[in-house]
């Protein structure tokens, strides 16, 4: 119902629109030539001044600003690129150095280890040789001593038995008879005493 009244009121209102736009002599004011010359004059003047000021003063400045900014940005980009390259090469260098030093350290370690081993080995060898020599020498001496020992013992035994016999019975016994007895004994019991 309200809707109907609303649309009716709109509809009927159109009949009164005539009152809003009172009849007036006129038509288009644009076609009235009264101020044409004035409009042409002022248009030429304002547009001319606008064009002159824009083209001589303002637009070159804007253009220069844009160019400057463009070149600045370009420069900055280039500088950044250069720095990036620099840092990359630096990083490469650094890596190279690290790799190189690692290799060097390994080499040094290996060399020193080899040297130390060599030293130790040679020392060991000389020591072994020395020890062998000493042992040989000692064995030789022992051998000589061993060879000489029974004779000496026999001699001592003959002397002591001579002395003993002299003291016991107070008579000189024949040297050759005693030595025969000792020889006989030592031959019989030599194994027992000297380990021959």
């Amino acid at each position: 119902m309200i809707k109907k009244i609303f649309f009716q009121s709109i509809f009927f209102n159109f009949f009164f629109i005539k009152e809003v736009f009172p009849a007036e002599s006129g038509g288009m004011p644009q076609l009235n030539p009264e101020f044409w010359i004035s409009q042409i004059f002022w248009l030429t003047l304002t547009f001319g001044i606008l064009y002159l000021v824009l083209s001589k003063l303002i637009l070159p400045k804007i253009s220069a600003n844009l160019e400057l900014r463009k070149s600045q940005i370009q420069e900055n980009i280039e500088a950044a690129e250069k720095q990036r390259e620099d840092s990359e090469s630096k990083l490469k260098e650094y890596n190279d150095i690290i790799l190189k030093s690692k290799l060097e350290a390994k080499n040094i370690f290996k060399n020193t280890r080899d040297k130390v081993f060599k030293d130790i080995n040679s020392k060991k060898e000389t020591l072994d040789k020395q020890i062998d020599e000493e042992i040989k020498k000692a064995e030789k001496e022992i051998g000589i001593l061993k060879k000489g020992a029974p004779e000496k013992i026999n001699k001592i035994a003959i002397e002591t038995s001579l002395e003993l016999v002299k003291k016991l019975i107070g008579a000189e016994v024949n040297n050759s008879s005693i030595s025969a007895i000792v020889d006989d004994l030592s031959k019989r019991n030599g194994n027992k005493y000297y380990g021959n």
Partner: protein
Amino acid sequence: MAANPMTQFEVYRIGPEIKLGAFDISFTNASLFMVVSSLAILIIFNLGSKKNSMLPNKMQLLAELSYTFVSKMISDTAGSKAKPYFSFIFSLFMFVLFCNMFGMIPYTFTVTSHIIVTFILASFIFIGVTVIGFIKHGFGYLKLFVPSGVPIVLLPLIVVIEIISYLSRPISLSVRLFANMMAGHTMMKVFGGFVISLGIVGGWLPLSFSVALTGLEILVAFLQAYVFAILTCIYLNDALNLHH
């Protein structure tokens, strides 16, 4: 209240009558808005070009965006040869745009809604483009009227049509802008009148329509300035790069 939708286009004198010889060049409301538009353009672009910071402020951004917009428009339509005419097309575009936009403010006057203004602009462009064409190509510019690849039988007809279309350029250019501006403002005035006459009961419908129309008219104001400038570029392209 100015009830007639056409009264908004009336020109009246502001201040004393000025005479230059036999001609009346009095300062009128139309002159006022030409001056206001030009001053607004100059102030905005002067502020926008004053200092150059790496991070532009709003004014600078506005000026530089407009510059690149017009520059791109010209290079897209007329090529690199049109570079010397950049400042003219830029001023033209800005002038028409600002006149249109100032006309959208209530109680103002729309300079471009007058056929004489748009016709003077359009005929200046027409004459300028024709002169440029003859300077660049001599009488070879007349080849513009003879399209290639047309049968000889049809040629007389085509040439006549081409000449008529060429001569009607200033009229079509000026009438397009003037008619758009006048029609839009008349429509808005009519719907505004409806709001008053229908009152509180039925006025809402034309009011909402009027709001929508305002948005449309702002779009049209920009679009017509753009069309005016781009058609100038196209005519200039014809004169600079003779393709036919």
